[in-house]
């Protein structure tokens, strides 16, 4: 059980590493956001499950569940607001978009 918990922690850390590499390598803000947000959610959830498995019933598990739920609730909101600000301040690299559903010409 301890080994499983530590492996979960390691996999969660590797998700953080993929987020950081994507942050460094991807060309524009929206693709960096794509690389950054999903590993944040899944990696932190894996880490939380790992803590729960390793520490066991001596811990108040409600706090851990609360941490996971807060992460699931808040991160999509933050990513949505950031991408909205990116589009509205026109920092989108349009040559990287296959289709722009928000542009005025795409509504017909």
């Amino acid at each position, binding site marked *: 059980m*301890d*080994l499983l*918990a*530590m*492996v979960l*922690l*390691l996999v*969660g*850390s*590797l998700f*953080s*590493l993929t*987020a*950081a*590499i994507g*942050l*460094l390598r991807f060309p524009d*803000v929206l693709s*960096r*956001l794509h690389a*950054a*947000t999903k*590993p*944040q959610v899944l*990696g*932190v959830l894996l*880490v*939380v499950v*790992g*803590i729960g498995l*390793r*520490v066991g019933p*001596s*811990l*108040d598990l409600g*706090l*851990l569940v*609360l*941490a*996971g739920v*807060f*992460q699931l609730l*808040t*991160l999509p*909101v*933050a990513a949505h*607001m*950031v991408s*909205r*600000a*990116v589009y*509205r*301040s*026109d*920092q989108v690299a349009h040559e990287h978009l296959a289709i722009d559903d928000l542009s*005025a010409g795409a509504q017909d």
Partner: protein
Amino acid sequence: MITAIALAAGTVLAVSALLALVRVVRGPTIINRIVALDVMVSILISALGVEAAYNRHTTTVPIIVALALVGFVGSVSVARFVARDEDGTGDEAGAPTTLGVDT
């Protein structure tokens, strides 16, 4: 074995924090920096979690909850600030830009 895995996880987290810090320093706009700082917050949560799980203590679990709850406030407020700033400096003189109509 457990110690080796914990050390590996800590090293991976340190490397990813360093890479995110490189993006914070280099990022051409404030949006890039705030995305990288968001990643830094989750790396911090993961690091606290690895340490708490390795030492089998629960002292830092409330800090993890607080970071998971508050971590998004910074990026949301900066995103609002950037959008508002762009609204104020509309590039076509006098014309209400379609970008700022339905905030």
